[in-house]
């Protein structure tokens, strides 16, 4: 291989390696500088070439020089075109984010549930967290010494104080049913409402229990409301909340204020019904309690139980949130660790 071809190869390697503007200039100087440029030196050395060869070799050297100049020109032009314009910013630096807070998962879920039922034509109620025995128990077919009171271990006030509706209260509500009683006391049927809010029970504070939790209860009363309506409404609700692929079943149960009573289970998502630790091998997850309003409740609020029928239901939002988001420790909802809260949408 001639010296000229070797130099051409060498240049091509150098050119390929030169990534920046500055590196390209170094390459140009190395080959084309008047003083000691490699191509310039070849031209100067033409004197030693035998005279017969001189025109041919000279032509080859000049051709190489032209090639190098053209190649460098093209690369330098390309580099210039790629250079950021004046005032350009580095778009890869982090942006200046407006600080936005995050919603708590429990109120987020409560909002979603309220939105679903609002579309179903339900009124959303608000009511006191402190209650009296009548609205929390007696009107709900739980007279004093009723064994079902054990299902809701109650926190009592040391002395009665005024509730948010101005009535003397003696206990922290164990469910939001008192709101429904108050609504029925003051409004005739038809009724179609949900009653969300915090409730209190004398439960231990551990992985799966909190002495305070959030409930959404619902009530529908009319002249021809049936268990079939209950099934249809709640099936539509849980499918919208958990996904249309979930299977639903209604299992008989007991609540003092409903007759018949039913518990609603959805198929377990983590095992698709095959049975796993999450669903205690049953393939089903208990989501809410429900039933047809007990005639004694209608009698307590002055509704004619022969004329009106209705259904009621209730669920704990914490449990729904645990299942929906795979939260393993219910206490996370009350620690307010920002690393937890910031995982939820705005």
């Amino acid at each position, binding site marked *: 291989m001639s010296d000229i071809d070797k130099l051409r190869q060498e240049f091509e390697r150098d050119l390929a390696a030169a990534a920046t503007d500055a590196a390209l200039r170094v390459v140009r100087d190395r080959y084309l500088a008047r003083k000691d440029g490699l191509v310039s030196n070849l031209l100067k050395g033409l004197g030693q070439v035998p005279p017969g060869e001189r025109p041919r070799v000279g032509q080859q050297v000049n051709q190489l020089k032209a090639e190098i100049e053209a190649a460098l020109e093209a690369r330098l032009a390309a580099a210039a075109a790629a250079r950021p314009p004046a005032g350009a910013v580095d778009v890869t630096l982090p942006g200046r984010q407006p600080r936005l807070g995050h919603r708590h998962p429990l109120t987020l879920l409560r909002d979603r549930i309220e939105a679903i039922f609002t579309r179903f034509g*339900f009124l959303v109620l608000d009511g006191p967290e402190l209650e009296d025995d009548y609205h929390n128990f007696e009107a709900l077919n739980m007279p004093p010494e009723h064994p*079902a009171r054990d299902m809701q271990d109650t926190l009592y*006030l040391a002395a009665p104080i005024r509730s*948010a509706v101005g009535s003397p209260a003696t206990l*922290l509500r164990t469910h939001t049913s008192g709101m429904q009683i108050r609504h029925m006391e003051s409004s005739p049927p038809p009724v*179609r409402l949900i009653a969300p809010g915090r409730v209190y029970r004398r439960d231990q504070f551990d992985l799966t229990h909190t002495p305070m939790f959030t409930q959404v209860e619902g009530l529908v009363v009319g002249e021809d409301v049936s268990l079939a309506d209950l099934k*249809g409404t709640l099936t539509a609700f849980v499918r919208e909340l958990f996904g249309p692929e979930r299977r639903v079943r209604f299992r008989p149960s007991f609540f003092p204020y409903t007759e018949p009573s039913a518990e609603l289970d959805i198929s377990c998502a983590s095992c698709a019904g095959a049975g796993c630790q999450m669903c205690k091998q049953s393939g089903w997850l208990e989501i809410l309690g429900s039933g047809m309003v007990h005639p004694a409740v209608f009698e307590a609020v002055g509704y004619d139980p022969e004329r009106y*029928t209705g259904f009621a239901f209730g669920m704990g939002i914490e449990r729904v949130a645990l299942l929906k988001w795979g939260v393993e420790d219910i206490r996370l909802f009350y620690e307010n660790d*920002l690393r937890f809260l910031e995982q939820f949408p*705005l």
Partner: protein
Amino acid sequence: MPDNPDRIAHEISLRGFEVAAVESLPQPVIDFEITANRPDCLSHVGIAREASAIWQLPLALPEAPAIPAVAGADLDVRLEAPDLCPRYCAQVFEIKVGPSPQWLADRLSAAGVRPISNIVDITNYVMLEIGQPMHAFDLERLGGRALVIRRASPGERIRTLDGVERALDQDVLVIADATHANAVAGVMGGHDSEIGSSTRLMALESAYFHPPSVRRTSKRLGLKTEASIRFERGGDVGAAPAGIARAAALMAEIGAGVPRGAFIDRYPAPRIQTAIRLRASRIARLLGQEVPAEAVGRILTALGFEVATDNQAETAWRVTVPTFRVDVAREADLIEEVGRHYGFDRLPTTFPVLSAPQPPPPSSLVHERRVRHVLTAAGFSEASTFAFIEREAAQPFCAADSEPAAIANPLSEKFAVLRPSLLPGLIDSAAHNRKRERRDIQLYEAGSRFGSGAAAAEGRAVALVWSGAANGPHWSAPTRFVDFFDVKGVVEQICAALAVTAAFVPSATPFLVRGRAADVRAADGRHLGIVGQVLPAIVEARGIPAMDEVFAAELDLQALAGASAGDDKRVESLPRFPSIVRDISMLVDDTLPAAAVRDTIRSAAPPTLVSIAEFDRYQGKGVPDGRLSLSLRLTYRAADRTLTDDEAQAATEKIVEALRTRHNAERR
């Protein structure tokens, strides 16, 4: 009937009996959770009856032939409190105490009951089998060979089987001998008349006690037993004789004893069985579908109800309720029985007809939601804290000389009182984050609070805490720490969102730093809330370094709603003429509140002054001590014409003059 215990358990669970566990070794055992309304199913016969209805098999009840009366062994039974004990049966047996045969011991063990001796085991066995609790007395240790069913006398005491000495009162029903209480009725027997290995004669009790009375006694004594659980839910008044008959049969079978003397049954007012009319139309109305008459009859009969056709204008039945079904009192209860065994899954799914619109949502919820939006947008994350807190955490937030509202039966000291404010919970949440390397904290909560002292009452509030950086971290700017005006700005935005005009005045709120605290007031002077820096001692006590400045605000949501101008507003037309801006710089005393300056300017200015903005406050070189250079931008505009420079100039001169005379201000 399937032979696989899991299948059996599953089918029964779908009739309302949750399955706690299914064991297969050494023999199949299914553990059901029985709801409080079904005491009849706290027994094998009860569950067997459900099974017979499911698989349409005949129910085979355990054998209990009538007891032949054998002379001897007197027992005097006196029922003195028939209100608390509607029925009391007893029978004396001559017994030989010893161990139970293996089959009996094994069955008890499988049911989770420890075998003790043949006599005790038989009473337990009968209780598990047919649901009737019984108690055995050593007849020879009963004074006067008597059983007196009476209320305890004041100050009376008893040592129960568990060895505990217990004080009784007149609400407690006891089974006594001639002088002493020998059992707490329906709850636990007494130590003194306990059956021992040498007992020869036993008085066996099988009774029905008034359920609320048993429950009250069990709660008062803190004593829950297998017997009390059954009695308080409502036993079977008809099963009292059956209990003794079954026990006698078992004793004969294993050679544990034979009856002596007459069978005693004190039942002064026999219960009349309830009969309920059940209409086919009502079943259809409640379940949403008709159930074939054949199925109604079959289900109820299998469950022990007597069913007679009672067609008048419509298909109906007259259903007699067996005494063991204490939960069935009206038509809806029967419909539940039909629905439960017909199968909820066979009912259609429909949607209730909407026959009238619902009223609008309560404004409290609308306001709360709006406040949440503002605070989320302002960078605060939402917290959720308990309504009950530690007394020490609550105390600084109570009104002077008052105590927080207390819970009578708190779970622990940590949950002892109702929060007077949302701030203690938020401060604790901030401390939680601070201990986990989080320095920049913005948290809020909207919820209930309960005041303190005589003013204790449930109310709604929103509160926020802010500590650390005021601006988001970014390479382009240094961190600025939160100060009073950051938090005040948030409060102003909440007020604006609810259309509330608020004023801020220096506050003496005891939990805030003096001089960095304001009361928030409505236009009519009503208290809306507070804003300021929380006392370092308070945050330090909860685990936040005292040098961290924690700013906070709390607003009464009901008061805000009351002060709101509402959403019914008319839009102002946009200005059609240009405005004129004049800047003035004044030297004023540095203690002069900005609000006073603004008031003076407004009172001196013509209606064309549309805005006042403080754009600089300077102290230092060129400004005398105790003075402050205040720069204000005044904007003038008229709605109906273009203002002239002269008008703006004249107005500004008048403002400067007013500031000079009223506040000793000098123009710079």
